[in-house]
């Protein structure tokens, strides 16, 4: 019973739920601010995501007459729940080992696409033609970026597994063991065999976050924000919260996979260090790319993802295999 309670606490407060939300919204605010500064604008205040969410709570919710009511209302809740649970599985090195030490790569791989699926569900339930268009684009993009992600995870699992088996064939899917191994033998991000996988992960981030140049499914100038078109008020706020949680999850996963080093034994210092590394990851892979690029067409993005990041991840996989 107390285990259940502990799990719920981890999912609601730390590191899932409240903590992930605070970090995610802080990152979203910083993202907009830095993007504005790169374009020589002033930009919104840092608390802008909170203000947006507060505003959305005061707006009325309109549900289209032709929409599938239950699916339309449940889709944002579905996405939010998936991400809150997933955030509890992300280990914060030196602070938290992941829920029940179960931070398993495969569990995270299954939980990660839930917000995209919620978006697809909501888009198709809204009965809007733009929602349907967003649905098909999101699905195509998801097929494209999930392949390199799976290969990156496999490369990491095989490298650590082989090393732990003393050079014999093996794969280690426990994120806790992967982090512990890296703390002993050095970060994977500095390992020459893993550098292609790291670059592939950096390319995977804007795709999964729906940021430019891969904001194809929610393109506001082409298809009026696609799946989000019919959402307004508190439901839209829930989608924004989900997106903030997802920011925390994918950046935290990146840090855990490639740079899980700690600087000392104090947990507050480690926590700040972890958030700092996530921030650097976000600035490199999301903000700078976003402020300098336009938007790909869906077939260009698909072709890009199945060639460049998949090829890079495959390189890493082969390097791990032969070494």
């Amino acid at each position, binding site marked *: 019973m107390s285990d259940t309670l502990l799990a719920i606490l981890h999912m609601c407060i730390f590191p899932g739920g409240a903590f992930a939300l605070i970090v995610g919204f802080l990152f979203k605010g910083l993202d907009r601010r830095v993007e504005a500064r790169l374009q020589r604008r002033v*930009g919104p205040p840092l608390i802008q995501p909170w203000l947006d969410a507060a505003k959305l709570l005061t*707006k009325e919710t309109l549900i289209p007459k032709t929409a599938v009511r239950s699916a339309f209302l449940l889709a944002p809740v579905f996405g939010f729940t998936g991400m809150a649970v997933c955030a509890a599985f992300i280990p914060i090195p030196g602070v938290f080992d992941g829920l029940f030490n179960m931070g398993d790569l495969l569990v995270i791989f299954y939980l990660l696409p839930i917000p995209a699926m919620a978006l697809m569900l909501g888009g198709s339930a809204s009965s809007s033609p733009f929602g349907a268009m967003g649905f098909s684009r999101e699905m195509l993009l998801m097929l494209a970026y999930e392949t390199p992600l799976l290969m990156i995870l496999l490369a990491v699992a095989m490298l650590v597994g082989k090393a732990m088996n003393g050079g014999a064939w093996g794969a280690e899917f426990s994120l806790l063991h992967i982090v512990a191994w890296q703390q002993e033998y050095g970060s994977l991000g500095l390992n020459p065999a893993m550098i292609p996988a790291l670059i592939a992960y950096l390319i995977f981030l804007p795709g999964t976050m729906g940021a430019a140049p891969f904001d194809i499914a929610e393109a506001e100038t082409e298809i009026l924000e696609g799946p989000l078109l019919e959402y307004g008020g508190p439901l839209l706020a829930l989608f924004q919260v989900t997106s903030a949680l997802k920011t925390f999850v994918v950046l935290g996963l990146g840090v855990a996979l490639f740079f899980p080093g700690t600087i000392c034994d104090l947990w507050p210092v480690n926590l700040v260090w972890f958030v700092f590394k996530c921030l650097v990851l976000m600035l490199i892979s999301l903000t700078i790319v976003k402020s300098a690029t336009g938007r790909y067409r869906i077939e260009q993005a698909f072709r890009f993802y199945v060639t460049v990041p998949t090829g890079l991840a495959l390189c890493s996989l082969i390097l791990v295999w032969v070494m």
Partner: protein
Amino acid sequence: MALDTTLKKLSVRSPWLFRINAGSCNGCDVELATTACIPRYDVERLGCRYCGSPRHADVVLITGPLTTRVKDRVLKVWDEIPEPKVTVAVGICPISCGVFRGGYSIEGPIDRYIPVDVNVPGCPPRPQAILEGVAKALEIWKKKLGIEG
């Protein structure tokens, strides 16, 4: 009750703008786009954001003299915007139809059909005028929410 008021007070710092083109010549639309995008007149510092969907909008910016062809669509889109919303007429066309007044295809001025809250005259208006219009719209939004200015 207190939470409600706090949320409303915070919410006026996040006005999302939505543009409706009611048969405009695009001059005002160009001004709107550059007002948001160029460094000198950055409206994002007010917390504004251009949104693509009428469902997300708080402040509606209407340009153009409301031609016969777009009238029904403009009214339909305007109805889709959730309350509370503030309507800003940008340019001389939605206010008085300008040089198009009395034309066979003109249904405007726009306040025959839609309650307009702020008028921003000009052909096209200067970016500063549009910014002031948005700032005035925020004051009206506060009144509509029932909180002190």
